[in-house]
């Protein structure tokens, strides 16, 4: 019998080694797998490359992982924010490498990675600093930049519900990078609010089919609304 459900976060993360490339879901705090990141801090893997839209907010979650010195390089679209002080300090001190990617290219590179695409031409970024040195091509009169897919050793994502086969439902805008990252990593580890019985998810509504998911761990409700309102 297939069961992707693991009992603990430490079990789910046990084989993440030093130097791993890890996609971490979330857009700001929405969809950020906070419990898995806390587990990764405890687990201690270092020299990581992290792929995320941002570079941490405040002092918890991804920001705490950076502050703990576990990340050598971050690939993201929008590192600098009002509350990205942890990243800002590391970057200015030369302690973290940054690869800046336009958000849609980041998404499409991840999608392409999961979909087995060799490379693709995109109009985004053409003629800008972020496309310098990249191959370009004119197709039907429009200019495009060649971009390569992105894959990772692990994806850590947050979803709303899962069944034991790893079929996933998300909640509202917390879906963001989850489905594409799940497809682009060798091992996809998902934290969910609840694991439900097989058959409880409507097959028409499943967002990420279980084939893209390797491990599921239930963490309960992810936030205290009052507390969250204060930290945003």
């Amino acid at each position: 019998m297939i069961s992707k459900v693991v009992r603990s976060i430490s079990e789910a993360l046990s084989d993440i080694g030093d130097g791993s490339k890890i996609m971490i879901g979330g857009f700001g705090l929405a969809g950020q797998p906070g419990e898995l990141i806390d587990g990764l801090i405890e687990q201690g893997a270092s020299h990581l490359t992290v792929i995320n839209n941002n570079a941490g907010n405040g002092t918890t979650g991804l920001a705490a992982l950076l502050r703990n010195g576990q990340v050598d390089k971050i690939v993201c679209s929008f590192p600098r924010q009002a509350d990205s002080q942890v990243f800002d300090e590391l970057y200015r001190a030369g302690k973290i490498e940054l690869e800046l990617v336009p958000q849609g290219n980041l998404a499409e590179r991840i999608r392409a990675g999961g979909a087995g695409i060799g490379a693709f031409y995109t109009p985004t970024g053409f003629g800008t600093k972020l496309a310098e040195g990249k191959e370009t091509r004119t197709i039907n009169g429009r200019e495009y930049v060649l971009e390569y897919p992105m894959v990772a050793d692990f994806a850590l994502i947050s979803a709303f519900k899962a069944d034991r086969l790893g079929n996933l439902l998300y909640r509202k805008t917390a879906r963001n990078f989850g489905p594409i990252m799940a497809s682009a990593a060798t091992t996809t580890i998902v934290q969910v609010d609840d694991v439900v019985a097989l058959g409880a998810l409507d097959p028409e509504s499943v967002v990420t089919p279980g084939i893209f998911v390797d491990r599921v761990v239930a963490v309960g409700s992810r936030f205290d609304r009052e507390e969250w309102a204060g930290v945003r």
Partner: protein
Amino acid sequence: MFAERLTRNEVAARVAQDIPDGAYVNLGIGLPTLVSNFLPADREVILHTENGMLGMGPEARPDQLDPDLINAGKIPVTATLGASYFHHGDSFAMMRGGHLDVCVLGALQVSQFGDLANWSTGEPGAIPAVGGAMDLAIGAKNVYVMMDLSTKQGQSKLVDECSYPLTGMRCVSRIYTDVAVFGLSAAGATVTQLFGDATVDALRDLTGLALIDGTSA
């Protein structure tokens, strides 16, 4: 120069007039979000937020806060009836694929031919951050910029050639400012509407550009 300027709310209201019924629209972070306050009630306009929703509603009241429901500026928002959620691959396909009718963006500089600079001042040592700006710039059917025409130091932000790093080339078709509305094309910039005491000649002086007078059209 230009004692009588529109307020930012007045500029937002002016932009809103040009958003047609049935349009799918992305309003960029910052000033452009003001436009949503002025959309005429008799038009149905669907707002897109690139983090993954169509049918974005107003900012959430304290009793509506939901950490899973935010906009691209990471502000808690609400969903309207008929809203939909989707992942980033789909969201940026909507943008890059030309499915949005209108995108309204802020800008540091816009060239008279429609080049846009709005993501970086290129200052040495500054931490770069681009987000979805480059996708928005090249994706929508109509890309409008909403900005003050001058910097605080009095320099025109409508320029012959952008000195700041580009976000996209030849992508902006219209600029709404506090003193005038401009149409942009390969032929250069055309003044299409003047506000307050602005004149086309005064705008030519400020911008140093041979602006086409389209105000009588």
